[in-house]
């Protein structure tokens, strides 16, 4: 059973973890895998056992591009977890992936929480974090079996309004 120490936390992913084990193992291979419904084909996150759109129990892992747009963010200035104190201020971003945006309704999308990091996995500077900015997934290796999907800014052209808290 992998127990990975990260920033003072024990990340526990038991052998019988039916949701996350393969997700984090795929991340360690630097692939972002989401579950796709065997019946309707729609992707979902976080990993789960029934399809929220058609309630089918069949699913397969499907690799996604890991590219997306910042849908919302926050800057943690006062860290709660002791292991994050030397990391603050750090951004938490809610990333909307390019796949399945606006499906099956205009308000839906695949959205993932992560940190916005620089190439060295330090937190991105606050002045560079904004809703609407383009990002791509990167993988922070933590152990032989586990990596943490994170996001980093890209230089892709922006489409839509970019906004940050003044």
């Amino acid at each position, binding site marked *: 059973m992998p*127990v990975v120490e990260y920033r003072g936390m024990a990340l526990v992913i038991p052998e019988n973890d039916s*949701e996350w084990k393969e997700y984090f193992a795929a991340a360690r291979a630097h692939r972002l895998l989401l579950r796709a419904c065997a019946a309707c084909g729609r992707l979902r996150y976080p990993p789960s056992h029934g399809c929220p759109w058609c309630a089918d129990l069949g699913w397969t892992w499907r690799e996604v591009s890991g590219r997306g747009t910042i849908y919302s963010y926050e800057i943690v*200035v*006062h860290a709660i*977890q002791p292991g*994050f104190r030397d990391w603050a201020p750090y951004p938490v971003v809610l990333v909307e992936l390019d796949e399945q945006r606006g499906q099956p309704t205009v308000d*839906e999308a695949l959205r993932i929480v992560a940190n916005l990091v620089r190439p060295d996995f330090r937190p991105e500077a606050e002045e560079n974090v904004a809703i609407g900015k383009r990002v791509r997934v990167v993988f922070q290796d933590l152990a032989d079996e586990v990596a943490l999907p994170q996001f980093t800014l890209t230089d892709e052209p922006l489409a839509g309004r970019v906004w940050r808290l003044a």
Partner: protein
Amino acid sequence: MSGLRDRYCVVGVGETEYSRDSGRSTRAMAVEAIRAAVLDAGLRPAEVDGMLSYQLADSTPAPWVAADLGLRLNFYLDVLGGGSSTEALVGLAMGAIEAGMCQTVALFRSMNGYTEVRIGGTGARAAQPVRGLDLAQRPYGMTSAGQNFALTFMRHMYEYGTTSAQVAHVRAAHSRHASQNPKALLKERVTVADVLASRWIVKPLHLLDCCLETDNATCLIVTSAERARDLRQRPVYVMGVAGRVSKPRTDFHWAHGPITRVAGYFARDIVFGQAGITPADVDVTGSYDAFTFTTMLQLEEYGFCAKGEGGAYVSSGIIELGGRRPNNTSGGHLCEGYTHGMSMVIENVRQLRGTVDDYCPGGREGTHSYDYAPGRCRQVRDATIAMNMGWASPPTASALILRR
């Protein structure tokens, strides 16, 4: 309208001191709050035969405190949960009585939210192993309520132009109310500028956008309207109740729908439908002000203003004592103290009785000056209908409409 409208009443309210230094157990506090509520109702302890509590593995079970007061219970249930539980349990109490399982229910929350299990997530909670669904957020340094809600607030600012200054009016208003509340932990009035000058916790939240971890216990007594007629207090009738109404998913609500939509959107039609009224009929509101932003989101989702206009609504003066529809007249979680929602229901019960415990001589007997200067009155004149809005997180809401 619901078949149960006006058929059940809140007949007793009780609470301990709001402190950050209780120095005693949740059991001791629960017993004190329940006893106060029973006496407030004019009941003998043995006349309470049902008990409900809510907790997050941080409190004392209902049957233990019942035994301390010599109550033999015909029904009890300890429910897992924090915010949004109060209103839901009022509905469950009505259901238990309606089903014939018991006749009078005490529901309580007791917590050492500052000195024992800190609601903000520091201490023991921060050291817990991360597994299951927690893996989706906690490895990213996202664990506290503020950290969990801030993404919703930030997106609201992006979509609707809501500003920090607008929501800071919530803190300013609630601090004005707390200045007339002898029980409040923070009685000093603060300004919008004070809120904006306070240090950042998690942007867009300043320190003064956040509520106060508190030690206390609170209790409500619910019984039938028929039984209520013989009791000590003017009955406060339940017009409508909605419990733990959720968005399409609560585990990771980012995954579905617009994230600026909170669960009050779904609770609104249930609770107003039962009550047969509209938001315009409500005289006093009780929001779940864990944060300034949560008040704004709830008020707009329940229809007190249009979606997206919450910032303008809360900064207009409407929510202040003397305004058209005061909110959290006790000072609420932001200033009186944090109770996972029960204290705002207690306050509204007292408002509807006309016996708010302010600084007016004779206030508890119903004699008020309606002078809203600091250290004076906080009774709303002729308060007839009050609404409480419970919140567990953006995707879970409860609601309660009461009348005198």
